């Protein structure tokens, strides 16, 4: 069905289609619309989930852990400080190998209070063992949320998935949305290690160094296997519903001399900048980074690279720039832009490319170069 929706409502619509057994969530700007819409679905009888309106984000993730381990599909949504407040349980969910799906509406962190888009919240959870995907359109928010359940619940993965969408820039803008009839795309939830009183086991007890070490390796092994699972699920989704995605969304990259790498809505905005630059005779392309964990292989050989980070690792550099540098050996031009919702237009992005300084870093509107 074709309609129009905000990014938040698209996520809620996907959750409705996925029919989780339990949804536990706490409202936080700009995620609030997701949990409100889900509450409306449950109240109206359109979604037969147990909706647990918890008293905090720490409890939201704890309740999801209990529910997922108890044997049902589980969803929550958060943002910014909410995500940081649940950080302990974010680690726990991955360590317990529970396929929880969480929408995170990317937002800056205080102080000062700032409710606008930034990726520091998600990247602060980089090493928790969660898969992370960043979306750029309302449609993609819907599609990625649906696929997230299937990827997380695949027995080769059994890790939680975070679906990231930019606060306000995507969460509150309206675009067309085509909802799908899922059919049997999502199989019934089956957790091989679900709590079962017929087979009493102890979960998460004291664990010695050797076993603990092996469990960590198992997470990494599944993270590696997840690349193939993501590809399989996205391929099946494309076959069934006609929309295809990949680890990156590449735009006019084939013959590009300079490639822009960005995340979320800035990655989409970059496509407009690429058209502008091409008109000027600059052979530019863009690779919008969709999957951040597992981190994709990027083919950047022989190209200049401009990385736009809507985040920063203080004392070290842009998170994406560092990842690109580490994984490819390319020294990018690192632009820090869009923090706290700073407006970044396609003209700005085009200017980053025209005025690039490989190997250097600049803070848009604050430090040198731009």
């Amino acid at each position, binding site marked *: 069905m074709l309609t129009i929706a905000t990014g938040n409502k698209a996520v809620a619509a996907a959750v409705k289609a996925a029919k989780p057994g339990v949804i536990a969530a706490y409202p936080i700007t700009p995620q609030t619309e997701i949990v409100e819409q889900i509450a409306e679905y449950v109240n109206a009888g359109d979604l037969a989930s147990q909706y647990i309106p918890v008293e905090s984000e720490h409890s939201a993730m704890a309740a999801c852990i209990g*529910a997922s381990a108890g044997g049902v599909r589980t969803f929550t949504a958060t943002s910014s400080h909410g995500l940081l407040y649940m950080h302990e349980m974010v680690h726990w969910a991955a360590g317990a190998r529970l396929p929880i799906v969480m929408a995170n509406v990317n937002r800056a962190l205080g102080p000062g209070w700032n409710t606008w888009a930034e990726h520091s919240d998600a990247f602060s959870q980089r090493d928790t063992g969660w898969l992370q995907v960043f979306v750029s359109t309302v449609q993609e928010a819907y599609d990625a949320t649906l696929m997230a359940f299937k990827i997380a619940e695949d027995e080769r993965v059994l890790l939680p998935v975070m679906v990231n969408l930019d606060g306000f820039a995507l969460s509150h803008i309206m675009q067309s949305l085509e909802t799908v009839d899922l059919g049997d795309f999502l199989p019934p939830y089956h957790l091989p290690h679900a709590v079962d009183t017929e087979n009493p086991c102890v979960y998460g007890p004291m664990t*010695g160094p050797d076993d603990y070490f092996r469990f960590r390796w198992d997470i990494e092994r599944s993270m590696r296997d997840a690349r193939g699972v993501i590809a399989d699920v996205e391929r099946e989704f494309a076959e069934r519903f006609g929309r295809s995605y990949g680890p990156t969304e590449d735009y006019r990259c084939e013959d590009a001399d300079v490639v822009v790498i960005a995340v979320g809505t800035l990655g989409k905005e970059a496509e407009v900048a690429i058209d502008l630059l091409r008109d000027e005779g600059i052979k530019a392309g863009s690779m919008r980074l969709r999957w951040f964990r597992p981190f994709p292989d990027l083919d950047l050989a022989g190209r200049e690279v401009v990385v736009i980070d809507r985040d920063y690792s203080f004392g070290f550099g842009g998170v994406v720039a560092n990842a690109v540098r580490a994984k490819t050996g390319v020294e990018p031009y690192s632009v820090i832009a869009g923090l706290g919702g700073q407006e970044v237009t396609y003209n700005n992005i085009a200017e980053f490319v025209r005025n690039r300084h490989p190997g250097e870093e600049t803070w848009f509107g604050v430090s040198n170069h731009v």
Partner: protein
Amino acid sequence: MSAIPKEEYLFKCTSACAGCSSSLCLRYVLKAAGPDSVLVVPACCTSVLQGIYPGTAMNVPVYNIAFAAAAACASGMSNAFRSLGKETNVIVYAGDGGTVDIGIQALSGAFERGTDFLYICYDNEAYGNTGMQRSGATPLGARTTTTPGGKPTAKKDLDRIVAAHNPPYMATACSAYPLDLYKKVKKALSIPGPKFIHILAPCPPGWRYPSEKTVEMGKLAVKTGTWVLYEREFGKLSISGPSKAAMKKPAPLEDYIKGQGRFKNISPEIIDEMRQQVERNIQRLSREEAGIC
């Protein structure tokens, strides 16, 4: 005692300390709950005594969870089971630290939401798992490793906090009265909604008394009126048998204090204040039972 099943759900040779009364309690809790039960356990002595992976001392599933998260995790699990049509008992078994301090927000949330579960706090009045630091449940005057001069403030009144949530069932119990505990767990699990049992669990290394005196210590707590056994069922309070007589004529408070190293060198003024606390508590509960409040 013939009513208590022979089946064991807590096996022998756990890594609990000698004379551990909370593991004694757990044995009876599980006998009362039976095999269709899941324990949710935050960081506490129980997360240690169950053994090291891949072994377990428990014959029911145990879900270990982070310190602050037990009630919320149980909330999710209970909702999951109920949505699957399972009647499985979901029981939090948490120490006083995970209940009165770091876990109280999750506890309050789960009770307010009406979660169908039983929350049991076994209270040894300190952070036993980490070597006896003070908790919010440590009583006035008790020495712990973080209150070496004796705790300057009173024990947090957890039961009144829980009572303010109006759960359909709440009770106190003591490890020295296992049959009373067994019956209370049975009754709690027969009632839908959030239930709460607060068990006083004397701790030999923490309270600094010989391990063979653990039952005696619990009995002294009840006989002196320091710990009152009662139930509050749908708001109606009834004092339990062992406390009935004790409350009419409490044994001298000194009988309870003198055997415990944690109260060594306690001042007469602090003892007097403790005595007043005991009297106030007995009066308050007696009035409530008589319907005067």
